[in-house]
């Protein structure tokens, strides 16, 4: 038996423990200190309890030791012995962090901060009022010549699943047992109840075993029997030949007390476990398996290929005689439907609830509001909304920044709020919802709102260009300009350097859009629209000569056919187009990519106004072909990186179309303009 390698269970242990810590943290954050509800406390307790149990079993003694303290504290709360205080919640939250670090370290990550562990451990002990070194004496192994044991089971002992035979067998293993049965209580068979115990025993156990070992044998039936354990007189007194003399210095316990052992454990009153929360848990693990993301990505790629092949077939079939090829066409249309469904189903495997990011904010809001001395409530709506795992990972930072901004700049402190006749507690609302093929995430606060004059002043101060007679929407857009910050001083919350311009850039890198709406004194709402997945792009296809380019739809502002005189040539040969009151650089794609065009002059072609990072260019193309969703293929993975191109896709007719990298295009013209 000793060759079972427990390490095979470590992965599962780490995974479930980290999940448990997340659940614990979330529960701690929603815990209402005044009236902690039993279910939440229970959930928190259970997480600590499971980690401790697993850690001990799988040999992570440091984790087990630390979580034992945690569990002990929680047990007191659970049993009503201890009123949970705000200080306790803080302590527990920090303990969650430390446990997480210890688990990561045990899982081969960076070593945990030993000092931090020790410090927090000491704090927990202090909270528990445990005497540090005064560990209760472990019951001294009192070696006697042996023990005389009276064992009188209660008549219903069988109903507990216990069998006196097992107990006597275990006793017999401890030494030499002389077992005498008392059958006095046996009734006549006719009067007996077959499942009642009538027998009792007296055992003289000789051998080198301590009282604890004897008591352990009876541990399960302590309450189902009368038990008397007395030391046998020593060998000399008794003159018994078998008995071994007591070890030198060891003293037979004159009055063995059952309470002697385990006294180092805090005495806890345990109350009925109560109803367990049922909604906390997806029913068991049986319904899910863990799969590496690379496997799923491979699947998505293959399905992408399938979609393209299918589109190709569809296009070829368009030229067939529908009457002669009726069956084939029917089959193709079925293939079309099944392919779409397969694609959706495969995409769905990469989808995670947005709660995966939202769940980090309660803790952040709590910590920062303490730091800033503000009262802030966080509300989340639509945490269950699903989106691609890749998007989730990359939206976390922008969202974090937005929430910090709201905390730091958007929301007033309690005094200011009261003065403004508002609820002293500010609210930040995170909201996620599906809209068409997109997910919309809002970060809203009910704070002071954006200040038009201050933003304009700041823009002027920073030399950020402001359109003439800007409407409010133009002013709010200034926040996204590089180098802009509304904070009067740089705080350690929002920090320096990372501004809203980076947030916008990150969102656009996800093919997303970001918008601001605000009302003075009532709050600000930042809305992010994202595609559900990074593998598919909503694109506008445009033609230049024989080539098709895909422009991400989220970058397209408008398209127009320029009138004569609208395009002007500057001294350096660069051309600009005047759209309303703005001059935008003209970007003829045929020149950029050195390809043939049907319309060398802008007036003969179409201008597509593209925007990225707050700047615009007018891309000149021959023709707008249409809008379509395309499956993105990496150009770098399949060919090499090409300037101005972010990827490629395969069109229905099998041709490759390049996807325009609008951000790079815009930056290139901005540099040219600055030069």
């Amino acid at each position, binding site marked *: *038996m*000793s060759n*079972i390698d*427990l390490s*095979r*269970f*470590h992965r*599962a*242990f780490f*995974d*479930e423990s980290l999940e448990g810590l997340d659940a614990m943290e979330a529960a701690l954050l929603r815990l209402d200190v005044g009236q902690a509800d039993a279910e939440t406390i*229970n959930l928190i*307790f*259970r997480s600590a*309890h*499971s980690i*401790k*149990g*697993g*850690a*001990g*079993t*799988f040999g992570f003694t440091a984790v*087990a030791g630390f979580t*034992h303290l945690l*569990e002990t504290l929680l*047990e007191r709360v659970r049993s009503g012995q201890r009123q949970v205080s705000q200080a306790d919640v803080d302590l527990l939250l920090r303990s969650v962090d430390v446990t997480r670090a210890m688990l990561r370290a045990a899982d081969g990550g960076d070593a945990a901060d030993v000092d931090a562990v020790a410090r927090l451990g000491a704090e927990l002990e202090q909270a528990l009022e445990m005497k540090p070194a005064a560990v209760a004496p472990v019951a001294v192994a009192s070696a006697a010549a042996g023990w005389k044991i009276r064992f009188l089971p209660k008549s219903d002992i*069988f*109903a*507990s*699943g*216990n069998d006196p035979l*097992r107990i006597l*067998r*275990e006793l017999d293993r401890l030494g030499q047992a002389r077992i005498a049965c008392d059958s006095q209580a046996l009734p006549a068979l006719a009067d007996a109840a077959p*499942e009642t115990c009538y027998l009792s025993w007296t055992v003289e156990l000789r051998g080198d075993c301590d009282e604890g070992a004897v008591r352990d044998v009876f*541990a*399960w039936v302590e*309450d*189902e029997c009368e038990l008397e354990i007395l030391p046998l007189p020593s060998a000399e007194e008794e003159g018994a030949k078998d008995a071994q003399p007591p070890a030198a210095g060891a003293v037979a316990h004159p009055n063995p007390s059952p309470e002697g052992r*385990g006294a180092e*454990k805090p*005495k*806890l*009153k*345990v109350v*009925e*476990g109560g109803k*367990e*929360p*049922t909604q*906390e*848990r997806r*029913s*068991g*693990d*049986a319904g899910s398996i863990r799969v590496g993301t690379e496997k799923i990505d491979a699947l998505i790629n293959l399905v992408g290929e399938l979609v393209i092949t299918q589109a190709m077939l569809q296009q070829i079939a368009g030229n067939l005689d529908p009457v002669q090829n009726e069956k084939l066409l029917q089959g193709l249309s079925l293939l079309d439907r099944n392919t779409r469904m397969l694609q959706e189903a495969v995409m769905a495997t990469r989808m995670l609830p947005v709660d995966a990011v939202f769940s980090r904010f309660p803790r952040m809001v709590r910590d920062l509001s303490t730091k800033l001395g503000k009262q802030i409530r966080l509300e989340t709506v639509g945490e269950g909304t699903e989106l691609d795992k890749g998007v989730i990972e990359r939206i976390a930072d922008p969202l974090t920044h937005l929430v910090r901004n709201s905390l730091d700049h958007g929301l007033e402190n309690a005094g200011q709020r009261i003065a403004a006749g508002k609820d002293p507690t500010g609210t930040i609302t995170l909201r996620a919802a599906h809209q068409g093929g997109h997910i919309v995430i809002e970060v809203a606060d009910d704070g002071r709102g954006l200040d038009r004059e201050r933003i304009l002043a700041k823009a002027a101060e920073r030399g950020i260009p402001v359109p003439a007679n800007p409407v409010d929407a133009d002013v709010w857009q200034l926040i996204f300009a590089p180098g802009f910050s509304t904070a009067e001083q740089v705080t350690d919350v929002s920090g320096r350097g990372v501004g809203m311009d980076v947030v916008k850039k990150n969102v656009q890198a996800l093919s997303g859009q970001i918008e601001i709406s605000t009302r003075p004194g009532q709050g600000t709402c930042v809305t992010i629209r994202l595609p559900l997945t990074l593998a598919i792009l909503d694109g506008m296809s445009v033609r230049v000569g024989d080539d098709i380019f895909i422009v991400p739809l989220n970058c397209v502002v408008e398209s127009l056919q320029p009138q004569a005189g609208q395009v002007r040539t500057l001294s350096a040969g660069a051309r600009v187009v005047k759209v309303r009151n703005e001059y935008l650089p003209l970007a003829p794609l045929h020149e950029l990519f050195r390809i043939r065009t049907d319309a060398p002059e802008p007036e003969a072609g179409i201008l597509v106004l593209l925007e990225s990072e707050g700047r615009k260019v007018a891309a000149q193309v021959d023709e707008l072909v249409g809008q379509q969703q395309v499956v993105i293929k990496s150009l770098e993975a399949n060919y090499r990186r090409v300037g101005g191109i972010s990827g490629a896709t395969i069109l229905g007719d099998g041709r490759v179309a390049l996807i325009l990298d609008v951000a790079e295009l815009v930056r290139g013209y901005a540099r040219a303009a600055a030069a």
Partner: protein
Amino acid sequence: MSRILAVDDSTSMRQMVSFTLKSAGYDVAEAADGLAALELARQEKFSLVLADVNMPNMDGLSLVRALRGLPDYKFTPLLMLTTESTPEKKQEGKAAGATGWLVKPFNPEQLVATIQRVLS
């Protein structure tokens, strides 16, 4: 062959218990909480049930109580897997009808030794 029902919400513990007992020649069924365990126990009679105390949906104590109420489980050994080594917790388990307990942490050898003693 003795068939054992192992009940624990922790996947790693359940895997460890199940693997260990199977290696020792027992037939093992698994359940992730008390409700699932009760469902299985109604379908077949296990020789022994090994259940964690703290579980969602139905905890170990409630499971033991429910099992003891079934005619098939009137005398079946029902063991609790627990980290609480306090007398009160054990008392609670016993009051619910548990046969005994196994205190976590335990190693595979201890687990098998205990089960063998009970099922011998």
